């Protein structure tokens, strides 16, 4: 069944059709939330809230393109509201200042890792940390473009900024990510990103 049909059925109250839509979008939506808010628990809650809002508003969402754009945008807005709210509320943070320097305490990951995966995991962890330390605008575009493979046009619609802005923002985000990785000490982008200096910006 194509997406438009699923959206139409779901709008008529067909929960099975809506479940299919959720199964189709849960991964990109969850990952968008995860990369925006940075923790799995909140990301799952926010993705659920986005789907619940979609369920309630389906009557007003028509075509399939509009549905996914709407869903991404809603998720994005929920995540930003969440970040704002937690910034206001936060009284105990995992970031502590000591001698004027910020020290971050990461919660230990208690899951055991197979030994052969340790190196890959370390690199991935470095990328995750680099990514999470980028400004939200950069995380958004990298997630939407690279992780979720959305075209520029749709990203522009989701974020409601001109396509040209999206292109240059993605370029800046990639460069910023490379720089962060360089700081962290990940080698893989180091060689390529060194020569990025002096490159003309598009």
């Amino acid at each position, binding site marked *: 069944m194509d997406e438009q049909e699923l959206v139409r059925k779901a709008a008529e109250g067909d929960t099975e059709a809506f479940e299919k839509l959720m199964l189709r979008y849960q991964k990109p939506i969850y*990952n968008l939330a995860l990369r925006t808010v940075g923790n799995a628990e909140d990301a799952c809650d926010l993705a659920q809230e986005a789907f*619940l809002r979609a369920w309630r508003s389906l009557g007003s969402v028509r075509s399939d393109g509009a549905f996914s754009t709407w869903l991404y945008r809603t998720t994005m807005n929920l995540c930003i509201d969440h970040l704002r709210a937690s910034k206001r509320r936060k009284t105990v943070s995992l970031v502590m200042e000591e001698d004027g320097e910020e020290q971050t305490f990461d919660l230990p990951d208690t899951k055991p890792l197979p030994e052969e995966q340790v190196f890959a995991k370390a690199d991935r962890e470095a990328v995750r940390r680099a990514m999470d330390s980028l400004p939200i605008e950069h995380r958004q575009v990298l997630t939407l473009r*690279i992780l979720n493979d*959305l075209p520029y046009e749709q990203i522009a619609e989701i974020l409601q900024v001109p396509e040209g802005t999206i292109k240059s923002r993605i370029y800046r985000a990639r460069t910023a*990510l490379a720089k962060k990785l360089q700081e962290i000490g990940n080698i893989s*982008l180091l060689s390529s990103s060194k020569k990025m200096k002096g490159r003309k910006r598009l």
Partner: protein
Amino acid sequence: MKCENAMKLLQMSSRSEADEAALQEHLRQCPDCRQFAQFLQECDSAVQDLMEEPPERLVRGVMWQIDPERMEQRSGKTPRRRVPFVGTAIAAVLALVLVGVCHFAPWSKETKAPMELSENATLAEKSADGFLTGATDALPLEAEYAADGAPAEISSGSAACTAVLTSRDFDAPEGCELLMQQTQVADVKAWLDSTIGAVKEELPEGTCDIALYSVPREILQSLQTRYDIRVESPSDDWEICTLAVIMPQEEK
């Protein structure tokens, strides 16, 4: 092809066959652009590696909220009614306890520090007041809890959410909602005790123990999805849910 065009093409989300061929030709000749292409590729593949599988509870939790009957059928559980806001049979008991809650000033000085304590304090008090909007029945034991004589202020318009959590196998009065396996209730209770701390525990007499918690919205939502509990609230306008956890009293 000029380097500038090659860079533009490299960053496009899709390319025509002709553009692709011209680009590849340029890359063969230009080490700078090759380097740039490699940078983009490495960057993209690093980001793509971050893709994670969503937890199972994501879709399941939403389905429980929008179509509980279907989910019950799927899980093979006996169909049951949707959980009302507060089970009618125990509403009076809760009302009684909640009067107590108001007067015990739940987040006063000795409270075990919950997360984000300072802001929750105000919200919790508001929430408890708000609940009393509906708790107007005569309460035989009210005096015991309202010992300071202060009237139970009934504020109007204050948003509140209350919910009852009890176990399937607890022989509760009719109308009381049976939600979970007792072990799960105990599990949730233990978790709430360690993170939030109960406001008032254990009715002095009776057949059950009731523990009350002021649960922030996010925590309640995550509990709901984790345990497939459904709490219906008359409005969305609330921050703290007064959650009553009811357990059969242990034999002494």
